[in-house]
């Protein structure tokens, strides 16, 4: 629930197709993709061999040697994206750091760091475990490190709700803007591209065994064979809309989340969550100009999501896109990146395409597969996590005044 609109005033991105906001956005519009054979380790003997890896990012100059030694790669990416978002928003100049908070989502923490220390422990003994293991692996590490780096002392937090968590983190951040915080850093940057993370992804099912990057992750395509795992994500700075006039990319106006129990039809909960997010935003379905769908990339999950979109909006009544087809599923980072992309789409009046997919006509959705220009006022972002987690948010253009509101 979003009680008062929250303005997105800063965006920082690290992704498989761009290591800053505009680089990612340009690549996204061009239909560039970042899916390739895993290079971080030898994945050739696993059931899945493709990933969306962040490339050519060297966080060391910005972070310094001490932080590089005490953090996992995903925290390093997170700190880079958070610094970009904070600089973009200018909150450091406008607000006391004591009144800025950090509320991020996580899924598996600093997993590669954890694997290395598990290996040190079991192959060499307890004295070989790093002094930094006590926090470099845990789920709260990015929020803590962002808070320390920027001196932010306001109410902060960390949520874990699989791939849906970033939308919940944004909603909590918006709530804290009304409980005393002047600004929040939210979103998520995530990544577990190490062998020990890889086996967990594969064990969970839903990852593709395809080897051709162009046909591996195909949301809403009849050839869909599963997802490609990626890394990266986005951090977003939120401020009260009233404090951000003229500086906002977009307004966060609605949120809802829910849980699909194993005995339930997923469409029931998904539909309720989408409708609740729209109701919370006070935006009618026919006023939504674009949906950034979750696009799980499995035939069954895509069919469920398409069915819900059809029933809420009508068949082919709203353009649907899955920008993450270009980067893979970034765990908690994926939905944060979707919100960042939605905000940029609202800013520029451009809809980025779903790369590679040819939509299954049976889904009855208008899947955007080529870039589309045209002003956007209201966008819905849907996120689903493994295990039943479902969330949705509604963003509107800061220049848009809904009729009859």
């Amino acid at each position, binding site marked *: 629930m979003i009680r008062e609109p929250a303005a997105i005033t800063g965006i920082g991105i690290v992704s498989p197709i761009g290591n800053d906001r505009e680089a990612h956005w340009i690549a996204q519009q061009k239909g560039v993709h970042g899916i390739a054979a895993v290079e971080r380790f030898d994945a050739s003997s696993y059931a899945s061999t493709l990933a969306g890896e962040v490339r050519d990012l060297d966080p060391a*100059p910005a972070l*310094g*040697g*001490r932080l590089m*030694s*005490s953090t996992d790669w995903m925290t390093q990416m997170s700190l880079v994206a958070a610094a970009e978002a904070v600089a973009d928003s200018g909150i450091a100049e406008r607000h006391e750091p004591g009144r800025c908070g950090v509320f991020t989502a996580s899924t598996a923490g600093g997993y590669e760091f954890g694997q290395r220390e598990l290996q040190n422990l079991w192959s060499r003994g307890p*004295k070989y475990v*790093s*002094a*930094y293991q006590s926090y470099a692996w845990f789920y709260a590490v990015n929020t803590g490190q962002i808070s320390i780096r920027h001196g932010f002392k306001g109410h902060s937090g960390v949520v874990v709700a699989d791939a849906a968590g970033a939308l919940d983190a944004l909603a909590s951040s918006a709530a804290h803007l009304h409980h005393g915080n002047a600004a929040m850093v939210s979103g998520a940057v995530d990544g577990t591209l190490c062998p020990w993370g890889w086996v967990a992804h594969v064990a969970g099912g839903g990852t593709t065994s395809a080897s051709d990057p162009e046909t591996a992750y195909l949301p809403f395509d009849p050839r869909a064979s599963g997802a490609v795992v990626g890394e990266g994500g986005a951090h977003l700075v939120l401020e009260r809309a009233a404090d951000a006039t003229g500086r906002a990319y977009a307004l966060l106006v609605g949120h809802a989340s829910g849980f699909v129990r194993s005995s339930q039809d997923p469409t029931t909960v998904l539909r309720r969550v989408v409708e609740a997010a729209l109701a919370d935003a006070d935006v009618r379905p026919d006023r939504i100009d674009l949906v950034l769908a979750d696009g799980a990339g499995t035939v069954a999950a895509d069919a469920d999501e398409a069915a819900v979109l059809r029933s809420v909006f009508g068949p082919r009544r709203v353009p649907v896109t899955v920008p993450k087809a270009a980067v893979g599923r970034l765990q908690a980072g994926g939905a944060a990146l979707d919100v960042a992309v939605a905000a940029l789409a609202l800013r520029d009046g451009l809809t980025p395409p779903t790369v590679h997919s040819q939509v299954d006509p049976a889904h009855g959705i208008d899947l955007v597969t080529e870039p589309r220009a045209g002003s956007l006022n209201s966008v819905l972002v849907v996120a689903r996590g493994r295990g039943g987690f479902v969330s949705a948010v509604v963003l509107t253009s800061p220049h848009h005044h809904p009729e009859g509101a």
Partner: protein
Amino acid sequence: MPVITLDDVKRALVEGAGVDAGVDLERGIATLTFEELGYDSLAVLETGLRLGRENGVEIDDEQLADIETPQDLADAVNQALAEAAVA
């Protein structure tokens, strides 16, 4: 005889805790405190862990709490080595 030198401390610091740009370990290692060099208590712990492992000793808690400079750390490891030799 001291076994551990400041060079050993410097190497363990670099390997375990890293060095930030602008920190001149070459010059500072002998004259500055860990705090002045930008290292927190965990960096000292991590460096002490490394030196202890390499030399098969452990610095005791009380001594560790008093360590302020790289030389203190070298001294603590050397003392632990001397005690281990006696025992």
